[in-house]
């Protein structure tokens, strides 16, 4: 019995870690879509860039027998926090390049372009084995403070780390959106022509929002990499790396950071807990196919929210300036 409770607790902790990482992605998407109206369907691309950057920055170069199995362009063996900062920087830099190319496109085209960018990034990591070991990916990534705690309790420590990042990002965004800068973003979203008539450089504000959101997603990617301690390109497929996050933000409430967090926990609970229920009720022989019921569930959920409650559970708050 004690064993069982321990198992449930462990499950809940790793659930909370993943849901919090997804909440960080959702807040990044909220900067893009919720605040600025940028249709980023390439979250998986920034997710991958963040995860791979931090992995390469923090892991040592393979030595000995490992050199036969693991190819990576470099391994800097630097601390975790350096990895996270590097992930944010590289992700932001790539967003800047993408933004310069695509931000002048109309919204529908931007959406399709970002799908293409994310797919191209994933395929690139998959094909270019010299960079980060191709389809096998990188394993045994370092975990911060790992040696200070008994292995069985490490996830509790990591949960605290992730929650700290979540809290800092949340507070920073809430302050940002209530600042004059945040008001311009929403003005750009609501009426681009009026905003530019008001003397605001619409392109520049969009670019800043794209970079900021991408940096947050890069941080999320780094946190994921050090949690799972193993990454491979298949993690960054559009379903798992992009669309589930859209479902989360849409469900919770576009334009609302609390909604982004709430939606992430609900959708991730549906995704990770439904497996148990489904496996209990399906007939024998169907076990391998049953998990795909979740695809249908999430797809249906997304459609139903858009039809019945397009503003999500919470919806956008009225922002009153404090300045």
């Amino acid at each position: 019995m004690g064993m069982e409770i321990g198992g449930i607790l462990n499950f809940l902790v790793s659930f909370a870690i993943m849901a919090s990482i997804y909440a960080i992605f959702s807040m990044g998407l909220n900067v893009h879509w919720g605040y600025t109206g940028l249709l980023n369907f390439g979250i998986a691309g920034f997710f991958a860039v963040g995860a791979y950057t931090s992995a390469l920055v923090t892991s040592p170069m393979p030595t000995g027998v490992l050199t036969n199995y693991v190819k990576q362009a470099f391994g800097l063996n630097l601390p975790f926090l350096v990895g996270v900062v590097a992930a944010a920087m590289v992700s932001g830099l790539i967003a800047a390049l993408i933004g310069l190319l695509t931000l002048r496109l109309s919204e529908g085209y931007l959406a399709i372009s970002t799908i293409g960018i994310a797919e191209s990034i994933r395929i690139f990591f998959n094909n270019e084995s010299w960079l980060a070991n191709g389809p096998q990916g990188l394993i045994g990534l370092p975990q911060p403070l790992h040696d200070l705690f008994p292995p069985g309790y490490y996830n509790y420590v990591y949960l605290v780390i992730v929650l700290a990042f979540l809290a800092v990002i949340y507070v920073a965004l809430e302050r940002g959106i209530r600042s004059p800068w945040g008001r311009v973003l929403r003005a750009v979203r609501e009426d681009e022509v009026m905003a530019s008539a008001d003397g605001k450089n619409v392109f520049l504000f969009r670019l800043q929002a794209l970079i900021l959101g991408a940096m947050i997603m890069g941080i999320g990617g780094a946190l994921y990499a050090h949690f799972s301690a193993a990454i491979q390109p298949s993690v960054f497929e559009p379903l798992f790396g992009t669309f589930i996050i859209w479902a989360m933000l849409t469900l919770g409430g576009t334009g609302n950071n609390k909604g982004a967090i709430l939606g992430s926990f609900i959708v991730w609970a549906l995704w990770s807990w439904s497996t148990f229920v489904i496996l209990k009720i399906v007939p024998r022989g169907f076990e391998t196919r049953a998990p795909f019921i979740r695809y249908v569930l999430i797809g249906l959920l997304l459609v139903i929210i858009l039809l019945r409650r397009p503003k999500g559970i919470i919806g956008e708050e009225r922002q009153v300036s404090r300045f």
Partner: protein
Amino acid sequence: MAELVVYGIVLGSIIALGSVGLTLIWGITDLFNCAHGDQITVGAYIALPFVSLFSWIGFLQAKVGPFSFNWGLALAFIPAILLSIGLAVLIDRWVYKPLRQSGAHFITSFIASIGVAWGLRGLIYIIWGADFRFYTKGLRPMLFLPLEIKLRLDEIFIVVVAWAAVATVYLFLSKAKMGKALRALADNRGLARVAGINTERMIVWAWGIAAALIAIAGILYGIETQLRPEMGWIFLLPLFAAIILGGKGSITGALAGGLVLGIAQQVSTAWLLPTYKPAVAFIIMILVLLFRPKGIFGRRQM
């Protein structure tokens, strides 16, 4: 190289089939249908039970001419097309129509189509599993052409059927009254409405045409390679690239765009890994968007 171009025409014919419906829906409803690729997958899989069903009937077991498949598969096109149309019309009625009528932004429908895509793929995984499926087993007769071109006989069938289907639709759109109304709607919605064209009825027709072509594309691609749950998704980028190349709502543009994309993707394998094909499609798309956002083939008066 000549061989890659020929393979490109085969692939391009399938892309062209899918892109006609996609551009028609885009022109008429503003929707970029993200589920288009997965609807192609459904079209391919939906033919499977009919192929097995028809294989019980003796005379349908005979191979069609020199091709690798039997008459059962040839006949399975009909129920697959009908079911594909039924599915598309139902999805429109349950998802896109309520969104249109609530005056939702076209982006909302775009996001909804991702949900639809997800649901369809999940259903395919549940019903048929993740393993590869084949319509037929056994030899696939080859043809040796000059210039060292090796071609499967099936591929000739694929190209012929694809372009016959496209030609039929093209004739319908340029000659039939209904077709002309559809094109008018894709061309100028406001004007078409003023002229008394019933938009909702036209949208059902557009979905019908798109879904018929989708089913044909799916089965042809299933004959060309094999059936797998992600087979349609990989078409999404080339499909979008093709219709952007062709210009919004332009049928001829989409056809030309489809061919260009098919050939470009296959020829790129001379230098790049085949897994880079979607990236090639994407780069073509982004170049068009940056330099010729209205498409290259533009809109021609029919």
